[in-house]
């Protein structure tokens, strides 16, 4: 018997992107998660998204709280600074980091326990500040690392491995984020990389807080019959409401032609996201309509997925705070310290 050594998340092609980097260059340490854990698939999608966006790894910062999900930043982009902080408090660290250096690309990875129980307050306030970051909530309905207790996202009546039914109404990150004014709200499934990658790319280019609630099954504690967060259940009930297509700035934009049934959104860096809805009259730019649709669908037991809501032209934290362009960490000291003369002048007012 030997440990199930999972190879570094591999990719068929070693084709380089415009930076001359292959997907391999966006990988990290070998995953220590359970074989088949949804989180490993999300990691693969992250790698794909960053590679496709041609982001230099060292210009990205990856942060997380505590949990199996929060371990995953170790498994991608070893050339990025990473911060595996404390349980449920990653949003505040990301907020401070972003305040200090707005030019880095921030990705936060969290879990449903990390974000909806101990970290609920911080998540809500990061949304309120519209901190510019991609926030990936790897949602499996349980506390994986502490061995399978129900989390706050566990659905009413979902069965635990021991057959116990969850009596509580779930906290749904999507409705919550919509009601709190989040400017980018998506849901996806770790098993649907084709859907996940473009959403992640759009989220990384979104000039504000981009939340992706990714159903990411826990094969060890919550993938059984009766669980509403299992692979089987999610596959069967997921319903893609919005198909997302991301076209980076460089590519010549064919938006015009695409328009019509589709909604075309231009990101603040000029990239274009095309949203094709499969639901009659669904408008991914109408917050309350999106909310109504999602709630209704969930009421029917469906799991609506896709980039469900996006708002452009909003302000993000640095605009609220009216900070200078460029990172505060780059402002030279003499532009920060008023100096001796100013001090004398000031003190004349104190006598």
């Amino acid at each position, binding site marked *: 018997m030997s440990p199930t050594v999972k190879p570094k998340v591999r990719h068929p092609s070693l084709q380089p992107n415009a930076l001359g980097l292959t997907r391999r260059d966006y990988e990290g340490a070998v995953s220590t998660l359970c074989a088949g854990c949804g989180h490993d698939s999300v990691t693969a999608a992250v790698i794909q998204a960053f590679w496709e966006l041609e982001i*230099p*790894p*060292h*210009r990205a*910062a990856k*942060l997380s709280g505590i949990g199996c999900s929060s371990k995953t*930043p*170790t498994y991608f982009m*070893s*050339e*990025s*600074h*990473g*911060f*595996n*902080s*404390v349980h449920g*408090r990653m*949003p*505040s*660290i*990301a*907020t*401070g*980091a*972003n*305040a*200090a*250096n707005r*030019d*880095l690309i921030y990705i936060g990875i969290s879990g449903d326990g990390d974000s909806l129980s101990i970290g609920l*307050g*911080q998540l*809500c*306030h990061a949304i309120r*500040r519209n901190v510019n970051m991609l926030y990936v909530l790897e949602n499996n309905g349980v506390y994986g690392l502490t061995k399978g207790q129900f989390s706050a996202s566990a659905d009413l009546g979902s069965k635990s491995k021991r057959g116990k039914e969850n009596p509580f109404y779930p906290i749904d990150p999507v409705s919550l984020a919509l009601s709190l004014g989040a400017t980018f709200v998506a849901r996806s499934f770790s098993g649907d990389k084709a859907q996940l990658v473009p959403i992640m790319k759009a989220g990384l280019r979104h000039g504000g807080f981009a939340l992706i609630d990714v159903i990411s099954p826990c094969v060890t504690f919550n993938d059984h019959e009766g669980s509403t967060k299992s692979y089987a259940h999610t596959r069967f009930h997921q319903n893609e409401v919005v198909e997302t297509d991301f076209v980076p700035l460089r590519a010549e934009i064919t938006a015009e032609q695409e328009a019509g049934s589709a909604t075309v959104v231009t990101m603040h860096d000029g990239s274009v996201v095309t949203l094709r809805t499969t639901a009659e009259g669904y408008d991914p730019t109408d917050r309350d309509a999106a909310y109504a649709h999602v709630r209704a669908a969930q009421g029917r037991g469906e799991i609506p997925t896709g980039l469900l809501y996006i708002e452009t032209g909003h302000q993000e934290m*640095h605009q609220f*705070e*009216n*900070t*200078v*362009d460029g*990172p*505060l*960490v780059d*402002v030279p*000291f003499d*532009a*920060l*310290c*008023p*100096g*001796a003369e*100013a*001090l004398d002048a*000031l*003190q004349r007012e*104190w*006598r």
Partner: protein
Amino acid sequence: MAHDSPGRTNDFALKIGTVNGTGSASANGMLMQAFFRMGIPVSGKNIFPSNIQGLPTWYEIRVNGEGHTARTPHFDLTVAMNRETYAKDIAEIESGGWVLYDSTWPMDEGLLREDVNFLPIPFAKLCVENFEGARTRILMTNIAYVGALVALLDIDKDVVKGMLHETFAKKQHLLDSNELALKLGHDYALEHFDCPLPIRVEAMDLREESVILNGNLGAALGCLYAGATVGAWYPITPATSLMDSFTALCERYRKDPETGRNRYCILQAEDELAAIGMVIGASWCGARSFTPTSGAGISLMNEFIGLAYYTEVPAVLFDVQRTGPSTGMPTRTQQGDFFEVVYASHGDTKHIALFPGDPAECFYFAVEAFDLAERFQTPVFVVSDLDIGMNDWVVPKLHWDDGYVPDRGKVLSAEDLEKVQDFHRYLDLDGDHIPYRTLPGTSPKGAFFTRGSGHDKYGRYTEDAYPYQEVVDRLAKKIDSAAARVPAPEIRRVEGGSSMGIVTVGGCRGAVLEALEDLAADGVKLDYLRVCGFPFGKEVDDFLAAHDVNFVVEQNRDAQLLRLLTLETSTTKDRLRSVRYYGGLPMSAFHVRDGIQAHLLHAEA
């Protein structure tokens, strides 16, 4: 009519009892400033309730030509403007003292004292006769009692007028009414009492080299000058005004002249856990970042403080202490957080702490704190209190050396990284127990993973005993080595030295120095040391060793400083004697003297 106490010039204390939310604060501040402008050492203590409007509040002013301006519990004169507290206020007056009160309403016979002089002035009546509008009348009453005091205490009228002119330069009508109110009180006093009283002031020349400053403003100024760019906080008395001051200073000095955009980012967090998280995140990215709070906030930050300690991320925290435990008395002062601060968080931890003794040191130590935090890559606490933080002190003019270069510590730039083979976050390459760090975004080579879980000296995750121990052992040495770098203690030795010493910290300074003079007068001579930083340096150790008896003066119930000295110096326990006051008011020389004399008697007995 009671006897007058013998004349005392520039040596008295007065107490003004009013109701909060009635605008007396500015009048009282003006009074304090008047003494200051006359060049006389003075202090003003605001004893206010944890409430916004309608409750009793007091302002205490002590004038002392010798410079003894610590709080005194003995008052020569009270301005009793709050009938609710007449009884208390009158009872507290020294025999032979004076009670200035609003005689618009008759004073209850029962409250009269034979041994004090009552100075009735119908303030309300005068203001009703001379002003329109309820609010104005109330405000003017405050100015009227200032006017009366100008006459009674022989305060330079032009000084006060000058201040009114500065304040209301652009508001002629307000200026007029204020001057009138001043005159009403002043003239009434002149007419009805023989002014000045035996307690009076005489101009001195102190003013030139000093300023009026509160510690929170001083600390905020320190953050500004140290180049702090990210401040995160959650409102809490008595720390709130620190961030208010920082905001005001930044709006004045940190706007980009062209764009008007901010060279700072102040984040009002959702709570203290978020505030310290933001500070850690900002520091991790390389910004000088800080959070001001009070005890309850430190308690909530405990987990994060341990994270910063173990991952070696700089952070500057200001603990403006208030009376604990729990919510305690939010508008009273205390020094009760020493243990909470230096050993904050679970597991083996120890933190650097600085203890300013007045608002000026709040400025200097704030700057120090950022240098130390980045040098030692760890949280650094500046521990002040409500008395230092919120009260106006007269302190020596602040100085700034334009040659100051911030000590950013051992941070590797992209160029530095080019030169090295490969980078490991927690290696002690220089034998100073301090590893090198890199900032996010620098270069692929500089990337590393910060984690609060077990890690080895290369920064890799570990669950193995030895690699884990290597790192925490270095951490212990690193913090201990800061003892040589924190501000040195203030030491004063008596002529020829003494076998007894007095050791104190923070805002006790003034009371202790005053008490030392009194004791010396009684023939008790003591050497003096004031702790300014933790871990304690060699001077502290030597001082304790050099004195058979060390009286440790502090403002908490459990003798926390004495206990820290016991643990963190080589002193034996039997050399330490505790002198404490912790009722929530600033320390006074009386408490110090009484405490020490009690020990001495006890020793003789």
